């Protein structure tokens, strides 16, 4: 997916996650994570994010994530929404969303 702008999704509220995505040509995926549950689930959260980015075909991006204890499905959904916004996709076909 081709990213053209900044994409933001999610909130800082409990059990949610705030994802800010910035396209960055040629820099690979740079992920910075701050989480309440970093010690327990940091590795899992990172994996979910990276996998989602891979699935969406996003390769060069700076991802800034503030997690407030979101479940994996929420993390994936927020990342996906942020990527879509960064790609300028405004018509989403919800029936074929992964």
């Amino acid at each position, binding site marked *: 997916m081709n990213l053209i702008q*900044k994409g933001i999704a999610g909130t*800082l509220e409990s059990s949610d996650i705030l994802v800010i995505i910035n396209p960055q040509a040629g820099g690979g995926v740079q992920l910075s994570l701050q989480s309440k549950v970093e010690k327990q689930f940091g590795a899992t959260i990172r994996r979910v994010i990276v996998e989602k980015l891979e699935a969406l075909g996003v390769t060069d991006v700076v991802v800034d994530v503030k997690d407030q204890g979101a479940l994996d499905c929420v993390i994936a959904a927020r990342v996906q929404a942020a990527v879509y916004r960064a790609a300028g996709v405004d018509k989403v076909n919800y029936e074929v969303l992964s």
Partner: protein
Amino acid sequence: MMLRFVRKTHFAEVSIIVISGEDLIDYRTRIEKFLQNNGLDMDARIAKFVVAMNDYDANIVACAGLDGNIVKCVCVDQTYRGSELSLVIGTELVKQAFQDGHDDLFLYTKEKNKQRFNGWGFSPLVVTKGGVTFMEYNKRKLENYLQSLRSKRTSGTRVGSIVMNANPFTKGHRYLVERAAAECDCVHVFMVKEDVSFFRYKDRFRLVKDGLQDLSNVILHPGSDYIVSHATFPQYFIKDKHQVNRQASAVDALMFRQYIAPALGISVRYVGSEPIDETTSMYNCVLKEYLELPMGSEPPVELREVKRLECCGSVISASRVRALMKSESIRPIEALVPKNTFVFIEKYLMTSQKQKEFL
């Protein structure tokens, strides 16, 4: 219409709105009153407010302001404290700032509120002796900056540093750098980036670059958010203005001591002695206190105050040059500034003269 309804909250009666531009003029007194009721002062530089409002009585129950990339005047009404309202406000504020094109956010708070803003995603950078905590949203930003500094690290035991606004670059600046260059293996010169000075950053930078290029052991660094930037202390929780300045200076000094100096292996910082300006002499005094503080494994940074160069009976300073420019007496300036700066000022005065005639 700048007033924008954003969303409902879990509290059925509370809505979040964003206020900026002309609407802020209408709302300012109401926000100010709300802050005052909670023991806080309004900050005049805030250009955008995120406000939580009770739909029934239209009372403000929480607010947070943005002054560029600095978060200020954050306040939640007593009855809503401990609820998630603070996080709702925080989310909207962060989104607003990033949509406005900022890629980083800063704030000052008391140490006891550190945890709260940690929940907003901010990480503490420094804590002063007075308990003032300086926090940053995007900590990777600082790490990237330090990384770029490390790539310019040089060998040598005595590494000097100077921070200057150079508004404009004078013979006094040149003298200070020469002194440092003679005493050190290498000197790092940092520019103040903020475009609030009489001369634009771009011009100031070019004049310094031209004025120092013959000194082979001097490295000129562009300005950054982390060295004397407009991230000044919000006046709202320390009433004494003198105290405010001291605390803000302390944050700046600590940023240098804890992050910038270690990244470049800086062992000494040079400043010009300050006989006239009270703010600068206070800043020098705070710098000395914090730079020479022993702290962890990093060796302290020595502060070296160099007596300022004089000309015609008083010290050379950029403010003296600007005062002369104001009175349009161009000749006396020639003795105070290097040739490049003088040529620039001449050109500047000529164009502004033409503009005046045109008007």
